[in-house]
């Protein structure tokens, strides 16, 4: 088993997060059942006071989840040398069937958390706790996701088995085992490019359209999610190839390394932010009808959409720059 400080930190973090969220969800359950705003009884006052604690705890947990997503990937990259055939994080994640699912769920938790935080922010802007019940009800849905994530991550760490020289005879590795799949398959570059520019193009247009037709905001939220998927596919299929200047190096994690000037951060940072805010902007729109929020929602939705749009725009521009300045020529090879 691999036990290094980062793993210890991640294990503590997920344990703490799961416990805190379970506690918060239990409170949420109580709140949903007994919330009565018109009452001034000490029970109600107690509930209201508690919401300050729970909201802070949940915000804390979600911030931790965001950081642990990064730490998880970084750590996977760091310990890759311990496994034969693993050249980077991809190899590490492939050592057991729990690696990539854990990562996937972590990403889902990130977006669930960001959406919850946006709704929470909106709730505090209303003068009569307009979304409190809904918010804590949603928590009951997100909490199990965090527990699943903790489970997958733990199983992943427990399954990590380094290939080290243990016995005195026959210590040859890689001979009879399958390759660790250090390569990720990608889509054909032309298809990936069409998908990427196409989906993001539509997203940008729809985003601008929301200024005139707010109802388009729901479409924008959906398109943000699709853009996320398209961007990931793009990164694996052609952007990484351009950055590494190698026609077969598809790894999406090596971009984050210092050898490549940490360029990955300029890709993933805006991407995650844009998607999170895009989904958030859609999430707040249904509440424009709530009386205490009617003049809060439109400007908030607009702000979220604007930041999201500029991040997506930056992403497109950055991908173009990476394509243009790369020494690799991909499209010229098609058909050869």
């Amino acid at each position, binding site marked *: 088993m691999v036990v290094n400080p980062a793993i210890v930190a991640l294990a503590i973090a997920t344990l703490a997060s799961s416990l805190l969220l379970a506690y918060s969800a239990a409170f949420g359950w109580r709140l949903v059942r007994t919330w009565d705003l*018109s009452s*001034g*009884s*000490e029970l109600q*006052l107690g509930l*209201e006071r508690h919401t300050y604690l729970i909201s802070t705890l949940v915000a804390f947990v979600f911030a931790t989840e965001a950081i642990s997503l990064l730490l998880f990937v970084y750590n996977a990259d760091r310990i890759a040398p311990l496994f034969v055939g693993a050249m980077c994080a991809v190899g590490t994640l492939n050592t057991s069937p729990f690696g990539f699912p854990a990562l996937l769920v972590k990403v889902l938790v990130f977006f669930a958390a960001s959406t919850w935080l946006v709704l929470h922010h909106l709730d*505090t802007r209303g*003068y*009569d*706790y307009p979304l409190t019940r809904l918010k804590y009800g949603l928590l009951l849905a997100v909490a199990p996701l965090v527990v699943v994530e903790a489970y997958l991550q733990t199983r992943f760490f427990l399954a990590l088995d380094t290939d080290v020289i243990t016995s005195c005879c026959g210590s040859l590795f890689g001979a009879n085992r399958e390759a660790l799949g250090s390569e990720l398959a990608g889509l054909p570059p032309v298809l990936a490019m069409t998908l990427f520019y196409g989906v993001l193009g539509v997203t940008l247009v729809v985003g601008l359209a929301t200024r005139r037709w707010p109802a388009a905001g729901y479409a924008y939220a959906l398109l943000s999610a699709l853009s996320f998927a398209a961007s990931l596919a793009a990164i694996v299929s052609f952007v990484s190839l351009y950055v590494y200047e190698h026609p077969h190096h598809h790894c999406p994690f090596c971009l984050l390394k210092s050898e490549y000037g940490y360029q990955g951060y300029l890709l993933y940072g805006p991407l995650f932010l844009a998607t999170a805010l895009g989904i958030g902007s859609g999430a707040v729109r249904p509440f424009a009808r709530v009386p205490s929020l009617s003049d809060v929602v439109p400007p908030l939705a607009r702000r979220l959409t604007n930041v999201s749009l500029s991040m997506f725009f930056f992403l497109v521009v950055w991908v173009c720059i990476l394509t243009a300045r790369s020494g690799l020529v991909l499209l010229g090879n098609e058909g050869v």
Partner: protein
Amino acid sequence: MIELVDVRKAFNQGQHNELWAVRGVTLRLEANCTTVLRGPSGSGKTTLLTLIGCLARPTSGRVRLRGRDVSGMTERFLTGLRRQTFGFVFQQFNLVRGLTVEENVMLPAYPLGVSRPELRRRAHNLLESLDLAPHAQARAEWLSGGQAQRAAIARALVNDPAVILADEPTANLDTDLSHRFLDIVRDLKRKGKTLIMTSHDPLLYQAPEVDRVIGLRDGHLD
């Protein structure tokens, strides 16, 4: 301007030492009026003051501020409203030790993020009007009783609220200082402020500046 409808306030509800400080008070207070709540200790006048000033929420009953029901508001909004509308002067003055007088006066405006030069200007003007300008940089704990009270009044005025609430303002003052306090009351009246005070001091509730006296006994209106 401020309306209370059948408000009741209990402490330690559901426990063996449950206490109902206010038991069904219905009241209407007009703007620009100076009112004194009068009654013996334990009559609930201080608690009533906190309910009027939105410092506490009634256990039952409704409180309306300028026609708007504030009973079901989130703490954030209620506090925001309270900051804008009310200024409190406590019986014990309750200045923060370790801070200067000027800083104490500026405190209530911190959460609003008012720009610092603007805030200092406001504080300075208030201290001047209350003859405290020379003590602006003094530590709060060095002030005498009368000075401390004036500092507390300045603090209550920093957000330019419409209503000033004072709890037993003359309880810790001698006759001389009490008269000076009445001068301040007159001055505030002239500026169009609404004043609501609690007191069992006849010097205060019999003063000509007072427009209305409300008696309280055992949580009920007299």
